[in-house]
């Protein structure tokens, strides 16, 4: 089956965006993927062998975490797996003196506007 590799991990698949790996279940496909591209392992799994929390894996359009059989779900050659790291964030704590200065400038602008 085809596995789509996200941009940051393609350096471990010889630059390939899509790789073909045999296997009867999601888990079997993953095991074979790691055999074929061993450097991927540490980026996908924790030392305990669990899928890293920020790594999402979709079987076609379904998150494997929510499939009844999870990684034991059977697959066919026409199915596709997509590995997609999460993307999130947002403003919160300041990170540098430059931030502090900018925030102070904003507050001064607000004060000036209110006066």
């Amino acid at each position, binding site marked *: 089956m085809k596995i*789509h590799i*996200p*941009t*940051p991990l393609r350096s471990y698949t010889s630059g390939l*965006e899509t790789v073909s790996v045999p296997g009867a279940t999601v888990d079997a496909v993953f095991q074979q993927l790691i055999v074929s591209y061993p450097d991927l392992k*540490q*980026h996908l799994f924790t030392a305990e062998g669990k899928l*890293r929390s*920020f*790594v*999402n894996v*979709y079987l076609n*359009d379904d*998150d494997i975490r929510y499939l009844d059989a999870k990684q034991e779900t059977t697959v066919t050659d026409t199915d596709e797996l*997509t590995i*997609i*790291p*999460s*993307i*999130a*964030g*947002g*403003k*919160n*704590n*300041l*990170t*540098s003196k*430059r*931030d502090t200065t*900018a*925030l102070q400038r*904003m507050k001064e*602008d607000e004060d000036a506007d209110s006066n």
Partner: protein
Amino acid sequence: MLRIGYHDYEALRKHGEETYPHECCGVLLGKNVAKDENSLTPMNHVQHIVRAGNTRTDSAHNRYNIAPQELIKIQRQARGLGLDIIGFYHSHPDHPAQWSTTDFAEAHWLGCSYVITSVEHGKAATTNSFLLTGTEEDNKGFEDEPIEITIATHVTEEVTYNEKG
């Protein structure tokens, strides 16, 4: 370096104004160019931007999240265009255009550009880009990244200038 067309650059800034006081977010599609005749360092060249929905409706004023399902659709779109996901953008309403600890903790796309626009009182102010460097989670870091904005003068010709001079 991040290279982006003026139209796309203005579009991502406008997105932040439209969603104010909430954070906007989107994806940068293009190509990573290891080196070219004009650049001695790797460059992410944006050729298309895609707006994404912010799923953090519970705290949209200071958090953003792109649903994995939407990311997968965008990745398919990129594949169809012969492009890659090379970065992301989001806004900081009434907050500096600097990465936060949350931005850093949630950044996992090594080698990609993270563009942040500060939106002050509803108007886009500063836009900065940060390259997520490193080879794994344990040694990742954000580096300031120059933004080069290109202006198309003809269909087949582009002139460039560096925003930071």
